[in-house]
């Protein structure tokens, strides 16, 4: 960026911030017209924009800012009383200024004259007090408190302007001074000081060193280009890698000095890493600063009265995370005002204060940032949600009836779901909540809804603090080493083939593991990375099961070995590798070699785990596996209705499948589904057992049975519970866990499958 560009860039950034501040101040004044601070601050904001714009030769911006400043100046003096008309005119001026700034940014020139409408509005607002001094002199004439720093830079503008044609002078002078100014711009406190330095260069003696010093003292922060911070972050990342490498090398040597220096380096690097990460952190106020204005405009547009309260504005987040939640936050606010808060009339009738309240609360907890959006509106109408779900054919009426409140709330996140018929322009179609959820989850966050009808809704969002440096567990599979982000790991289990006790079991070709009374699907990392290639022979050594949780589901990943957990710098993979589902990136380990980072979502999908039938399994109680002998037969326990269970021999089961209700097709011979390219006739187990069929819209489990001579049928059950062993001599029923459970009569099944439709209409 050339030096002049840097200054313009600064000007734009600063002015935008100033205009945001102006908005906030004007709204504060709206609430309390006598508040002195917002008045001063708003005035300063306008004054700064005007001053710097003039310095850079943007006459249009200067003119508009001046006009607005005049009006506000009148209010400050007391010669004009603040009125809604004035506030509106000033807000309009602020918007018009933004438009001009945008124009400057795009076209790099200011041929955007001050918009007539805004000027007229300001004129009209100020006209009752005809005393305002006209034109350019106004800059000098408006009285200002001595402590206001921009005053120092205001005067030279007039001088410069008066001397020659304003734009040429300002432009030329800025060019000439740019060499001297630009380094100062980068290193010192913002454009204001740059302007005063510039002024000092041209106004020998007009500014005492004291005024420059005053500016320096007031601002103790430094404005740094975000790109510079990113570079710093990268460099620190490289330093972390080098440190890791050094540690590894030092570990191999016995040298006290080396060890102690390496230790010190480790400490310092760790701190440096932490602090540089913090520079990328920005407070939430960056986002929340714009909200009051948004709420103000939205409320007016919706004909409602809403106030916004924000807490924890100084909660900090990594820049990239902040960017990622910008849209979701805006949408949630819009939603609350548009759909959550009721109209004043409704609220009054309900005995609520006419003004609705939207409260945003942010705080750090357990290494994550929590943001809660609460409104005291009407809450989510769960019945409307239920009806909408049926209308949209997400569920059939009976199934919708069975959903509890929690499940209904979850429906709100379904794609294209909106409970309002009047889809407003503000919130748009019901694509909002599911996009919010997706965006938040993409950065590793979670979204949750709580609502009480008539009282309000709370949307709780949690997001991780930072993305770039994460703790990860190193694991190996074969000769390869991989990393798993710590945040997804539930536990590690040692699988010792020699030991007795629960391990990974094989059921119908799928691997599962019994954990805390639940069966979770298991995949083998060696198998996953082998892809379509030949599977290497499994070692008989003990292996480890890593229990991973993602998206509320759990699965197990079997690896050959586990190493330590360490902080790693996540680096993206190149373009030709970035679409490999199971890898989320890579890093460089302490030994200097690259290592791939596993993508837990991708792993799950790749192994087709989360969508397969095994994820539906649930063991009712932990059952100690009994040694299999010739006298025992393995049986599958299934549930045919809410109370009745049955068992059937595993050897008759070809596989287990899960189907959606929509997949049921009615043929002349009965109901069927398509399975693996073939037609699979269905038989309702409940009917076969003479039990009640419970209507459901949920996806259902099908036990595919081998009947005879290659014929198969699908036994529709309510749930697949477990695999047990029973005495081979049992017939008709068996005792499982102290209860008598009947055997599924396979003969009758064969007969039933040949008869007409047994699957009831309720399904």
């Amino acid at each position, binding site marked *: 960026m050339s030096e002049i560009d840097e200054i313009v860039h600064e000007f734009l950034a600063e002015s935008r911030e100033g205009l945001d501040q102006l908005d906030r101040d004007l709204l504060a004044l709206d609430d309390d017209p006598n508040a002195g601070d917002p008045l001063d601050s708003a005035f300063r904001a306008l004054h700064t924009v005007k001053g710097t714009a003039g310095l850079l030769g943007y006459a249009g911006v200067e003119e508009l800012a001046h006009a607005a400043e005049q009006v506000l100046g009148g209010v400050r003096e007391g010669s004009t009383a603040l009125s809604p008309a004035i506030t509106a005119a000033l807000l309009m001026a602020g918007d018009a200024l933004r438009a001009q700034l945008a124009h400057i940014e795009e076209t790099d020139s200011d041929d955007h004259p001050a918009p007539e409408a805004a000027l007229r509005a300001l004129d009209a607002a100020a006209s009752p007090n005809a005393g305002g001094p006209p034109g350019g002199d106004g800059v000098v004439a408006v009285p200002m408190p001595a402590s206001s720093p921009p005053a120092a830079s205001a005067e030279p503008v007039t001088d410069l302007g008066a001397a020659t044609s304003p734009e040429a002078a300002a432009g030329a002078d800025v060019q000439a001074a740019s060499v001297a100014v630009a380094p100062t711009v980068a290193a010192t406190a913002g454009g204001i000081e740059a302007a005063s330095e510039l002024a000092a260069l041209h106004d020998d003696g007009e500014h005492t060193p004291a005024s420059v010093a005053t500016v320096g003292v007031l601002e103790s922060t430094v404005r740094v280009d975000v790109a510079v911070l990113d570079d710093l972050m990268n460099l620190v990342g490289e330093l972390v890698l*080098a440190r890791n490498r050094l540690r590894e090398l030092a570990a191999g040597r016995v040298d006290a000095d080396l060890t102690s220096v390496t230790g010190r380096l480790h400490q310092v690097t760790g701190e440096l890493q932490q602090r540089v990460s913090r520079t990328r952190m920005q407070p939430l106020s960056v986002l929340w600063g714009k909200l009051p204005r948004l709420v103000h405009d939205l409320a007016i547009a919706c004909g409602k009265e809403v106030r916004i309260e924000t807490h924890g504005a100084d909660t900090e987040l990594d820049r990239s995370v902040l960017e990622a939640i910008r849209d979701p936050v805006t949408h949630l606010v819009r939603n609350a005002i548009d759909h959550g808060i009721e109209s004043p009339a409704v609220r009054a009738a309900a005995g609520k204060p006419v003004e609705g309240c939207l409260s945003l609360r942010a705080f750090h907890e357990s290494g994550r940032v929590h943001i809660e959006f609460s409104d005291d509106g009407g809450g989510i109408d769960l019945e409307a949600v239920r009806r909408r779900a049926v209308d949209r054919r997400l569920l059939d009426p009976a199934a919708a009836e069975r959903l509890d409140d929690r499940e209904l709330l979850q429906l709100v996140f379904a794609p294209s779901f909106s409970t309002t018929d009047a889809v407003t322009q503000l919130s748009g179609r019901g694509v909002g909540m599911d996009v919010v959820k997706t965006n938040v989850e993409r950065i590793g966050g979670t979204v949750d809804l709580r609502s009480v009808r008539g009282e309000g809704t709370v949307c709780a969002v949690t997001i991780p603090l930072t993305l770039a440096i994460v703790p990860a567990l190193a694991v190996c599979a074969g000769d390869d080493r991989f990393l798993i982000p710590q945040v997804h790991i539930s536990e590690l289990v040692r699988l010792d083939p020699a030991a007795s006790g629960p391990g990974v079991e094989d059921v119908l070709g799928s691997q599962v593991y019994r954990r805390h009374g639940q069966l979770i699907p298991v995949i083998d990392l060696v198998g996953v990375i082998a892809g379509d290639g030949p599977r290497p022979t499994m070692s008989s050594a003990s292996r480890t099961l890593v229990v991973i949780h993602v998206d509320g589901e759990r699965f197990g990943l079997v690896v050959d070995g586990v190493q330590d957990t360490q902080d790693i710098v996540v680096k993206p993979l*190149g373009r*030709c590798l970035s679409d490999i589902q199971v*890898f989320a990136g890579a890093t460089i380990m302490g030994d200097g070699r690259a290592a791939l980072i596993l993508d837990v979502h991708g792993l799950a999908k790749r192994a087709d785990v989360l969508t397969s039938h095994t994820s539906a399994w649930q063991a009712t109680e932990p059952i100690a596996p009994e040694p299999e002998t010739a006298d025992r037969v393995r049986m599958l326990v299934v549930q045919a209705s809410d109370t009745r269970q049955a068992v059937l021999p595993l050897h008759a089961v070809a596989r287990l499948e899960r189907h959606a209700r929509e997949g049921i097709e009615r043929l002349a011979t009965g109901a069927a589904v398509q399975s693996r390219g073939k037609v699979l006739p269905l038989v309702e187990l409940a009917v076969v057992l003479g039990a009640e069929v419970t209507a459901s819209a949920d996806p259902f489990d099908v036990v595919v049975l081998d009947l005879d001579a290659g014929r198969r049928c699908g036994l529709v059950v309510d749930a697949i519970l477990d695999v047990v062993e029973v005495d081979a001599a049992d017939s008709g029923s068996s005792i499982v866990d102290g209860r008598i459970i009947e055997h599924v009569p396979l003969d009758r099944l064969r007969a039933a499958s040949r008869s007409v439709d047994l699957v009831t209409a309720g399904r």
Partner: protein
Amino acid sequence: MAGIDLCTFELGAGHYAVDASRVQEVVRGQELTRVPLAPPAIAGLINMRGALVTAVDLRRLLGLEEDVDAAIGTNLVVQADGEVVSLLVDGIGDVIRVDEAMLEPPPHTLPAELQQLLTHSCQLPETVLLVLDVDRAMVVAAARA
């Protein structure tokens, strides 16, 4: 005399070259970490001063015979298709300036797949130089899954 600079290299029995302006550096003996499930032409990842660089198995890409002991070759690091990648070659030759008039289309006798990856061929006194199109090579390397 208008010309372009070519960085020459050897691969198998052949002599090849890339546009010298694309060459970032040459690095030897970097350990390769293989990437399972990657397209076959991708040899893996190498660590270049802390940066992760994708390494392309040029032999495979060009359809040449596999070299059994090419575990650690020479890395010709180039800018291709907008990113930095390493081409695994046997050895680097000189940078030569070639007159534009000497550049000809790739010989038709070559397999079509190979021709696609070349921009030109260049007749030199001792040999024929095949000039590689690095951008196209990356696109093809990524695509063949």
